[in-house]
């Protein structure tokens, strides 16, 4: 409160403005530039209001990659675990292939399906590269195992399908290959 001269600013154009008494620091900008003011010193005592502050707690924010920091907040929960934040959102990690919305096609099944049944426009879509070279060995090993398991499962499924086909055309087992060729065309 170095400046104690609070001024009463009465706008000459507004009829009811003689009663508007404003402290010096808080004049709205639009009023001050809209009209001409007659300034006179304000003689009444102004109440010094105590500033009101909401109660705040310290909260620990744990981001999705495990990093944590504290901040002051009105929320009473001591810990906040975020599931989606700057560490795993694509906008903040534009180069991350993990967050990119690409289809997982490690065994090439989707590509094979497209090659067999796909239309011309998506038959030639390039298969998304799996950047396994950039990953650490643990995830690499896990991926290899997953791929192996998938391949096994695929083999079994193919056998089943072959059984089905063979049981369907019992009298002549030859046309299965022809049908497949037809479908390809």
């Amino acid at each position: 409160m170095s400046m104690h001269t609070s001024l009463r600013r009465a706008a000459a154009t507004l009829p009811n403005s003689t009663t508007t008494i404003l402290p010096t620091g808080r004049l709205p900008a639009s009023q001050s530039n809209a009209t001409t003011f007659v300034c006179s010193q304000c003689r009444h005592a102004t109440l010094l209001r105590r500033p009101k502050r909401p109660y705040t707690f310290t909260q620990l924010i744990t981001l999705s990659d495990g990093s944590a920091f504290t901040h002051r907040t009105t929320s009473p929960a001591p810990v906040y675990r975020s599931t989606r934040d700057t560490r795993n959102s694509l906008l903040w990690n534009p180069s991350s292939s993990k967050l990119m919305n690409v289809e997982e096609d490690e065994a090439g099944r989707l590509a094979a399906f497209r090659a067999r049944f796909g239309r011309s426009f998506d038959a030639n879509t390039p298969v998304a590269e799996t950047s396994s070279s950039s990953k650490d060995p643990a995830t690499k090993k896990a991926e290899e195992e997953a791929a192996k398991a998938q391949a096994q499962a695929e083999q079994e499924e193919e056998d089943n399908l072959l059984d089905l086909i063979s049981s369907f055309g019992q009298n002549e087992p030859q046309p299965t290959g022809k049908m497949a060729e037809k479908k390809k065309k």
Partner: protein
Amino acid sequence: MAAREQSRYLARALPRAFMPSARPQPFLGRRNASDEAPARRLSDELETASSLTTVVSEDAAKSFDPAAQAKSRKSKLPRSRYQFRSPKYDRGPLHPHQPPPPSDPSSRLFVPGPFTLPRAEQTYNSTVASDILTLCYVHTPPGFKPPPKAPRLREWDDSSPYHKNRPLRGPRGGDVLRLLRKPIRFNNIPKIERITIHSYVKNAAHENSSWLHVAGMAIQAISNTRVETFKSKSSVATWSIAPGRDTVAVKAELQGETMYHFLGKLIDVVLPRIKDWPGIKGSSGDSSGNITFGLVPENVAMFPEIEVNYDMYPPKMIPGCHITLHTTAKADKDARLLLSAMGIPFYGKIVH
């Protein structure tokens, strides 16, 4: 001793001022009321006896022991005897009882703090500031002098006699005099000055005031600051809003520690959770370093403070808000550089 002697000289020297001067006054026909006043002497105005000459009795000096007196006191002094209390009212600069400055802890306006060093502020101090300084460095070889610029305010060509004494003309292509952008050096690295959260609640006018209460509580919860309310300045007939009548808006101003806490929370937790949010539009900004963006009610509900007791708020009444990031940058380009370094993404055509 010396002091006493000086005072004696002073006492001898002073009365001269009050004695009538020996120089004969020129005769004047005018008569003043003061001419007939009795001659004044120093003893009428001042006490001639010096306080240093008074003798204090020995026993009085010995009995004066305030420490022992305080120790022997059985009960504590009342608070009013030892604690200063600021006056409740500011009665103007000429009043003898002045309130202390707001930085004084005894002031009624005192706000304690800062108590923490927020993460966003640490990031700014340790990383962002030096990065911006490096990015904005422009090398000039020694001896280089920048070409002189035209004056910002143009003079009138004296083609007409009416041009005499006219004020200078504004810049070409509009009357707006932009802020002067100085080269960024170590002492004017742009930083975030304050954040304004503003919410215009149109339903507060034609329905009831509960919209405004909910909006105020929500904004206070997310910002850790008490909000201010504002009346409408413009008339909106379709929402039945009249200027000066309806309280329609809520605003919170964050500065310092609170601001950095809010910014860190906004960047790290809230903005990434917004579905399909492309970032702040590249053309936003008021061309003097302040960038504004908006959050819809669904996004405001994602703040952890609102999420933690979401049931407290009537779900339809949670407000959207406009957030203005005021920076000390003089151009939007610098402000965007600062904010993107702090972690706020921008999209679209970046307007400088």
